[in-house]
Structures are given as structure tokens and as C-alpha cells.
């Protein structure tokens, strides 16, 4: 049986954070160029994937490949503005877990 790795196993860090009070940003960083290229070339982490995972329109998502940091960065609006009554994550720090289990083919 082929042993496919998850994004959580391949990345050295996956985090989410406020980018100001109105946006969330996700940083997915790799220790090596090889792991970074593997994930980028797998074409698994895309705007469409984020749109489906978080149920938000693709036009609200900014997607960046940051080669010199071996990082993939995604920014999008917060579900609620920081500190609003309905907001459950003041620092937007616990919004990344749905990314951990994403399987990366070719690993």
C-alpha cells in the first residue's frame, strides 16, 4: 500500500493569524526546497481548494507562492471582524487545522 503524506507531515509549520482586524492569513512553510516543490507541483493547494474547504468565494482569496521562504501564503477575509460578538478567535490563530490532513499525492 502506498504511504501518502499529509500537508501536516510535510510542512515545518502551518499557521493562521490576523493580518489586521479584518483579514486572516495562512502561512504554510517547508524546511526544504524539495518539500516546497513537491506540494506546489502536486497542485493540491489551490484557490479552489481553499474556497471549498472554508466555503468562501474564490475571488475573496489571495494566493501566493513565496519561493525564497519555501512558503505558500493564503489570505482571505475573516468570517467575522476581530472582536465582533460572533468572533470566536481573536487572533485568528486556530483557523488552520482543516489544512493539516490534506493528502499530497506523489509522496
Amino acid at each position, binding site marked *: 500500500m502506498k504511504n501518502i503524506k499529509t500537508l501536516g507531515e510535510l510542512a515545518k509549520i502551518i499557521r493562521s493569524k490576523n493580518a489586521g482586524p479584518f483579514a486572516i*492569513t495562512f*502561512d504554510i512553510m517547508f524546511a526544504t526546497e524539495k518539500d516546497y516543490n513537491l506540494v506546489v507541483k502536486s497542485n493540491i493547494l489551490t484557490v479552489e481548494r481553499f474556497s471549498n474547504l472554508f466555503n468562501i468565494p474564490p475571488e475573496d482569496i489571495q494566493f501566493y507562492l513565496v519561493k525564497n*521562504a519555501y512558503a505558500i*501564503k493564503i489570505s482571505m*477575509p475573516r468570517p467575522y471582524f476581530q*472582536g465582533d*460578538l460572533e468572533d*470566536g478567535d481573536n*487572533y485568528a490563530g486556530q483557523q488552520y487545522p482543516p489544512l493539516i490532513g490534506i493528502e499530497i499525492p506523489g509522496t
Partner: protein
Amino acid sequence: MEVRVIAPNGTIGAGYKEKSLERGIALKPHVIACDGGSTDSGPSYLGSGTPKSSRQAVKRDLRYMFLGREELGVPLIIGSCGTSGADVGVDWVRDICLEIAAEENLHFKLAVIKSDQNKEYLKKKLKEGRIKPLTPAPEISESIIDKASRIVGVMGYEQIDRALSEGAEVILAGRATDTALFAAIPLRMGADPGPTWHMAKTIECGAACAVVPAADGMYAVIKDNEFTIEPLDLESRVTPLTVASHMLYENSSPFLLREPGGWLDTTNSQYKAIDDRSVSVSGSVFRKAETYTIKLEAAELIGYQSIIIGGIRDPYIIRRLDELIPFLQGYFKLKVRKLFEGKVKKKDYKLHFRIYGRDGVMGPYEPLKDNVGHEVGILITVTAKTQQLASDIAKFVAWMSAHVPIPEWQGIISSIAYPFSPPEIERGAVYRFSLNHVVEPDNPLEMFRFNYEEV
């Protein structure tokens, strides 16, 4: 020409190592700068004007910076004083500084730059169409401006530069971009803006980009078209990867950083290891904006809050949560009206249920909200126009929510496990961020107030 800069810490009051700052002073920087605030901790600090750090922690961190400045005779620049950078926060830090000066017998020219905004000025700018929304932005109107508890403008380097031109040796700035504190002196000395702003962005969080990240200081040197950076702690290091990664932190774009007068663009930046603990960066550019803009930050009081914390273990209740919560919302709407004899209307309070173990953390972004476990946490929030009303409603809600009938059981049960007696807790005033907009001022200085004094 080279310009040397130190950041004793990423923020004042986090407690850096004395030995690190000692080394920083020995490196003879042209400026000591440190950031004292952020919006990152939430709207309460701006709304209430209270600082996040304790007075003792801020005084301790500031004292060694003042002593270092005294030894070198270089400017000390502190920004976003008192967490929010509101006028009350600047006054709070000024008071601490005067106390240190008296205790240590220090004398200097002090500049205080205040950034609270005049509401009439902002309403005039709104009418002129010179307040523009950022993305995403809440609604703006004259009444939104009026309702704000406090509005600050975020200054850039131009305002700090003005205070330096007036001979200020210590600058206490209201709300400011973190970067401007570090960029002001290099830009005055004629350093290249590209590496200057990129240096400023890298150094402003202190040793956050060090291996291992720490609440400690950093040292940077700008020379020609590049800058070098290293942690002040000799046992700590940075690598090209950690420095490049830092552009990603708390910023939407990994390549662009907005300042009032333009953008730092790091798309073509090159990161190179100099040795095993320092890095040089070249290729960064600063692009001037066509229009000079000042970002606004505003916090609005939304009421006073009482909260109730509990847990639910009964699987019959857990599987019915999706119907029980709307049922309770409707039930309390009628009951509160009756109980308060029509004096409390629906708009006078808000009742909110958060279910941990379902979607309490991610809300609408939660992909696993149907995957509920054997136990859930419940957080009930009552927000009302007075604390008394919030608590009065919370007492009733806590009581009645714990006795919701469900068809599976015949007779009365206790449906929520409360860990506390009484179950309701008063939380005080709550605020929300109410603006994400920029103003186009006639000139960079008109939105800020300057005061100078000999200490």
C-alpha cells in the same frame, strides 16, 4: 555610509535580556527604537484606552533603553504607546518616562506626538470623498464616526521626522506603523529607502524571526543597497529562510507592505547568509504612492457583557442542539419582554450561544461542524446597553437554559453542567473595530499634534 539600528524588543513590556541590550549599546547604533502596541490583541485596548502590558513591565523595559540612550546620545523612539497608541496611552507612557528620568537624573528634549482624531475633521473629509475604504471594510457614515469611542490615525515616518527636525531626543508617538520608528533615522541620514523599509519590517518584531523566536532584541546595519541583520543575543541566530519568512508574518501579502507614503516591495529581494547567525538582504524597493494616506483605526462600544460557561454530556441534547438553540432564542425573546414588563426591547440586548466541540472556534469556516463529539462546551454571551441589564438577563438565561425539556425524557432534567456558582460572570465593556479606512490629508502633519518639553 552605514546606519546602525537596534530594536531592544518586539514590543515594550515583553521583557528582553539585559545582556542583549548591553551588546546592542556597545554596537553604537544611531537610534534605539521600540514598538509599544498593535491592534492584534483586539478592539478593547483602543476602545477603553487601557494598555495590554503592566506598568511595571513597561517601566522595566524602558529604563534600560533610557540608560542606553543616555550613554550614546542618540534618539530613542517609542511608537504606539500604551498598546493602542491613543492619547491616553501616550500620556501613560510619558508619565512612566518622567518617573524614570527623575529616578535616574536624566535630561532630554521630549517630543510627544498624538494621534487621536478629531471627529469633525473626519466628517468633513468624508463629505469631501477623501476617506476611502480598504478591503474588507465595514460601513462608514457620519454616525459611525460619531459612535466611535476612539479613533486614531496611524502615522508614518514623516511625523517622527518632524519631531527629529525639532531636536527631539526622545519621541513618544501615538499610533504609528511599527516600521516608521526604525526607518526615520536612516531615511534622515540619506539611506536607500528600499533596504531601510525592509530592515524596519524585519527588525520591528525584535527576535521573532530568530532561531528560536524570542522576546529579545535585534541589530541591523544598512549600507548602500542592502542591510544585514542579526539577533543581539549571541546565542541566537537568523537564517535566510527565517528572515525571508518574516515578511509573511501578520501581513496579507508576502511581498508588499503599505506605509502612508508608499509600499515596500520585496518581490525581488535576495537573502544571503553572512555567517552562521546573520543575514544580508538586497534587492528590496520602496515605491512611492501617488496619494499620501493615513489609515484609521476605530473602536466602538457595543455594550456590556455577562457570560455563562457550561458543558453538555447528554447525547440526546447534543444531537438536538441545532433546534434547541433557535428555540431558546425565541423563548428568551418572549420571556425577557414579559419579565421586564415591556421595558426591555429586543434591540437592547444580544444573546449569543457558542458551542465548543462543534464550531466554537471556526464558526462558518468549520468544515467538520457535523462531527460533534460526546461532550460539548457551551458559552452563552449576553451583551446589553448596561452591565446591570446584561447580568439581569444572564441570571435568567443561565437558570432557564439549564432546564430545557426534550422529548426523549419525561420530566424535568438539568441539561447544562455549570462549573461555577453563580454561573454568570460580568465581563464589563465590550468594543468592536468599526473602521478599516484611509484618509487623504492635505499634508502628512495635519492629523497629528506635536508637543515638546525639556525634561
